[in-house]
Structures are given as structure tokens and as C-alpha cells.
């Protein structure tokens, strides 16, 4: 197992290096001369030439990449083409915090809905309740965000006037409720499915039958023996939260007007602001890879049967 962990740890930096090369390459073949983009209508051939020289754009691709990686390791992802004089990190970090907060709220909604429902469905295996829960969740899961978001806005913001339709006011504000529900309810389906499967798996085990035959109370069996074990696989799903930060809330951020990273990514694409996009994809991949690494390792530590 130690060998496995070591292998993963050694491979991870290479993985990130290859991934970053790919992203940098895509940004490089993208059309439009960065110097022209920056200078806009002030562009003259001489100015473009000077700026290209200044930015090192005439260097061979591989040299540009190495310089970029060297700076990126120090936390410097260059300057935005569109917002001039702004470091990419300056633009990115506030938006990243917004998306992280939104996704924490989403995870709270989906876990507090999905885990109990999944457990309840499994406990009622064989009765009408189980398929009803599963089908309802599948129905909600298939519901396109394009529909839920405008629908919730129309009801709660326009008709009832309880919550403002769009905007962002931080984690502890009523405005976070609608977007959190919009993503949280469909993604609860994933938690329902996993919790239900792992609970059914545990219920079938011999030690649960033993617990019943010992005459333990239903409540004790549920909490101490079943839930404690069946909730473990849910751990692996927390990787979704990380993935959700980078793009999972894309449509929701757009429709609710939340200033998160997805909106930044989309604006960067429309305005060809590739330094922002490249940095975003790089940071996203790094977080995703590290999260998966931590989950895998902690999983092997928790459950020694897994190799």
C-alpha cells in the first residue's frame, strides 16, 4: 500500500505538468495576437512588435511554456489581456472564493437531502417507498438547470417576492438559497444512489443479523452498525464538490448572476482572455488531482480491503 501511495505521489507532478502543457498549447493555438488584443485600437505595427518582444511572444513555444510554468509555480499566472494591468491571480481569487462558498452550500443541501433519503430508501427496500424515492430522484436529476433556475426565480422571486432574483451577497445571505437548491437537489440523487447501495450492502451482512438477534434496539443498529459503515463510500463523492467549483455551477452562476469562476471562464472565452482561462483550468486540474489523491489515499487507509 505504501508503494501505491508513493507511486501516486511521484506521478502527480508529472500528471500536472502534462496537463498544463496541453492547456498552454490550446491557449497558444487559439486565434488572435495577444499583443493586438491588449493594444486594441491603439495598435500600430511598431507597437505590436515592441509588445510582442516585451511579452516574449517571439520566443519558441517550448521556451514560453517553461517561463510560464516557472512563474506559475511562484503563483504568477501573468496579466489579463482584457483588464489591463491586472494580475490574473487578482482577478481569480475573489471569484474562486465565491464559487467555493456556493459549492459548500450546494454540498450541504445535497448531503443533508441525499444521505437520509438514500438510507430511508434502503431501509424500505421491497416496499413502494423505495422505488418512489429512486424514481423521483432520477426525475429531478434529469431536470435541466435551464428549467429549474428560471422556474425557481419565477416562483420565489417574481411571484412570491421572498428572495431577490439574482446577485451575490456572501454565504450567509438568503440569496444563496435558490442557487444552492438549483444544483443541490439534482445532485442529491448521486448521494441517494450511493447511500442506498452501500446501506443495502451493509444490511445484508451477517453482523447486522447478529445485532438484531442480540435484541439491540433498531435505533442503535441503524446508527452504530449500519450508518457508521455505509456512510464511508460517500467520502469518495466529495471529489464532486471540488469538480463542482470549476464548472459544475456554470449555468447557475450565469442565470443567477453570481460572480464566480464559471462566469469568469465564460467571459474569458468570449473576450479571448486566454491567460485567465489557462490559469483557471490549471488551478482547477491541480485541485481536482490533489483532491482525488487525498480521497484515494484516505480510502485505502480507512478500508484496508481495497488495494
Amino acid at each position, binding site marked *: 500500500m505504501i508503494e501505491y501511495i508513493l507511486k501516486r505521489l511521484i506521478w502527480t507532478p508529472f500528471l500536472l505538468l502534462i496537463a498544463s502543457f496541453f*492547456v498552454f498549447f490550446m491557449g497558444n493555438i487559439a486565434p488572435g495576437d495577444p499583443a493586438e488584443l491588449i493594444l486594441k485600437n491603439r495598435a500600430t505595427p511598431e507597437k505590436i512588435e515592441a509588445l510582442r518582444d516585451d511579452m516574449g511572444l517571439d520566443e519558441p513555444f517550448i521556451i514560453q511554456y517553461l517561463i510560464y510554468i516557472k512563474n506559475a509555480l511562484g503563483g504568477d499566472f501573468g496579466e489579463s489581456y482584457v483588464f489591463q494591468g491586472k494580475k490574473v491571480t487578482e482577478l481569480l481569487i475573489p471569484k474562486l472564493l465565491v464559487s467555493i462558498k456556493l459549492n459548500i452550500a450546494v454540498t450541504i443541501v445535497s448531503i443533508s437531502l441525499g444521505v437520509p433519503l438514500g438510507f430511508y430508501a434502503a431501509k424500505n427496500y421491497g416496499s413502494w417507498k423505495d422505488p418512489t424515492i429512486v424514481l423521483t430522484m432520477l426525475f429531478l436529476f*434529469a431536470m*435541466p438547470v435551464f428549467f429549474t433556475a*428560471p422556474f425557481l426565480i419565477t416562483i420565489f422571486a417574481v411571484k412570491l417576492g421572498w428572495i431577490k432574483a439574482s446577485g451575490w451577497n456572501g454565504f450567509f445571505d438568503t440569496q444563496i438559497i435558490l442557487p444552492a437548491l438549483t444544483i443541490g437537489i439534482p445532485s442529491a440523487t448521486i448521494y441517494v444512489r450511493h447511500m442506498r447501495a452501500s446501506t443495502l450492502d451493509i444490511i445484508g451482512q451477517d453482523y447486522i443479523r447478529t445485532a438484531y438477534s442480540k435484541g439491540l434496539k433498531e435505533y442503535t443498529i441503524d446508527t452504530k452498525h449500519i450508518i457508521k459503515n455505509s456512510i464511508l463510500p460517500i467520502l469518495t463523492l466529495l471529489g464532486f464538490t471540488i469538480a463542482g467549483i*470549476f*464548472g459544475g455551477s456554470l449555468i447557475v452562476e*450565469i442565470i443567477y448572476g453570481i460572480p464566480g469562476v464559471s462566469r469568469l471562464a465564460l467571459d474569458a472565452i468570449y473576450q479571448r482572455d486566454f491567460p485567465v482561462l489557462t490559469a483557471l483550468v490549471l488551478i482547477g*486540474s491541480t485541485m481536482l488531482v490533489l483532491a482525488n489523491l487525498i480521497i484515494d489515499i484516505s480510502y485505502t487507509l480507512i478500508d484496508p480491503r481495497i488495494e
Partner: protein
Amino acid sequence: MKHSNSITFLKIFWNQFKKRKFALICLAIICTVYLIGVLAPLISTHDYSETDLSRTQNGPSLENWLGTDRLGRDIYTRVIWGIQNTIIITLITIITGSFLLGISLGLAAGYFRGKVDILIMRLGEVVSAFPDILLIILLAATLRPSIISLAHYIEDNMGIKGILSSGIVDYLVIGIALLPLSWFGLMRLVRGQVLSIRNAEYVQAAKAMGTSEIVILFRHILPNIISPVIVSISFSIGAIALSEVMLSFFGLGVQPPRPSLGVMIGDVTARGGASISVLRNHPEQLLAPIIVVWLMIFCWNIIGDILNDIFNPKNQY
């Protein structure tokens, strides 16, 4: 011999499938939606790009069955052509991503093991290191201009006309953008399955008889691992359709005036900008494309679930 085998396989499968009423309903819905998409040229009542400013934002009528949008285009016509675009893109992605890349690479990795296996798995890890949606968007945005200039080059130099107006560029861009998403999961599944049967006696026997490796892989191994592959593909069809709708919603997929469900939804909600006013006055315009998308995804998920039940009775839940 082989022929009768595949008939019994289908028969057993169909007997299981038709017992589940809900599965039949979903299959019927999917077939209807897809048939409508395929028959779009025959059953459309208007030209999908024909605008008529004298009848904008109308409700349903005998002339326009589902009403008209803000440019007076017939919504019914645009929805069925949109379905057709979604079908074409799903097909392209399934054929290239799932069949060509996913299955072949999985077979190769599992069967040949060693360096081939390591290379393919590492490549897959790199692809899955990116957040899905960001990668799709990045690819769609950066590839389109290159593909358009390639199409221009072909049109100018080879005298082939109509590449740009036919929508092939859109299909290529979306197809390539969705590729990374579609192959890795299936590849890993196929690889795992192959690993579990590559030393089975019938494979050994085929090897001993001097059967070529291609024949072993596609005639002996693939048919034996086909059930989980079918389940996995049926699950991914809904996800692919949704990704196409999402890309078009953001204006990175199918380009106007070509119709797409995503473009239609984006038009009504103004990509989020002024959604509420349009939505308040004309919510019915959103209804048709959204119901189609919802039904497609829901039914494919259910069919995937039921196929999983039938093919893998061991893990029922």
C-alpha cells in the same frame, strides 16, 4: 451457429426488458423523440431559419403549432431540427469516443498489458485531470476558428462547396470537444473486463489454435464483455446530449441560424441576462425545448438503470 447465438441473446434480453412496463414507456418516448428528429425534413412545417417579423412571439396556432419566437420563426420546426442536430452529435460522439477510442483502447490495454496499458491509462488520467466542463468549453472555444479556417481552405482549394453552410463545422467542433469526456470511463470498464477474462480457457484455446489477435479481441473477447459496455453507453447518451445542449446554450456549440435546443433555450433566457422579463411574458417558448431535453435525459437514465438490472443481476442496486 454464431447467428443463432446472437438471436437467443437478444430474445432473452427482450423477454426481460418487456416485463418492465416503465422501461417500455421510456423506450417508446425515446423512439418517438428520435423518430421525430430523423424525420425533421419531412414533417417540418416551415423553414427553420425563415423569419417573419409580422408574427413574432405568437402563441400556438394552426399555422404555427407551438407558436413563434422573437424573430417570428416557427418553434415546432426549430425544435424538431434541434432534435436532429442533437441526434447527429450524439451519434458522432458515441461512434468516435465510445466505439473507436473507448472500446478499442480498452481492449488493447487489457489484452496486451505492459507498455500499451501504462501509456493508455496515463493518457486517460491526464484527460480526467481536467474539470469536465472547463475542458469542453476550452476545446470548443479554441478549436472552432482552426476548424473554420480548415473548412475555408478545403472549400477554396478543392472546389467543394457548402461545407461551412452545412453545419459540419459545428458537428466537428462539438464532437471533438466532447471526445475526452466520452472515452475514458468506457475504456477503463472494458480494460477491467478484459483483464478478468483474458486468461479464460476459450481465449487460451483460440490462441493455441493460432487465431490472430484481432480476431481473438473482436470475436471472442468483445462479445463476452458486451453487456456492461451497453449499460455504460446507454448511461452516457443522456450526458452527451446534455453537454451539446449546454455548449449551444452558451453559443459555443451549434451556431445560429441553425436550430438547436440549447440555442432556443438560450434565446428565451437571453443566456441569463434578461431572463425574467422574457420568461414572465412568454414562458411557453421555453417549454417545448426543455421538455424534450428533460425527457431524453430522464428516459436514457431509466433505460440505463434497467439494462444494468438485466445485465448485471448480481448488483441489483
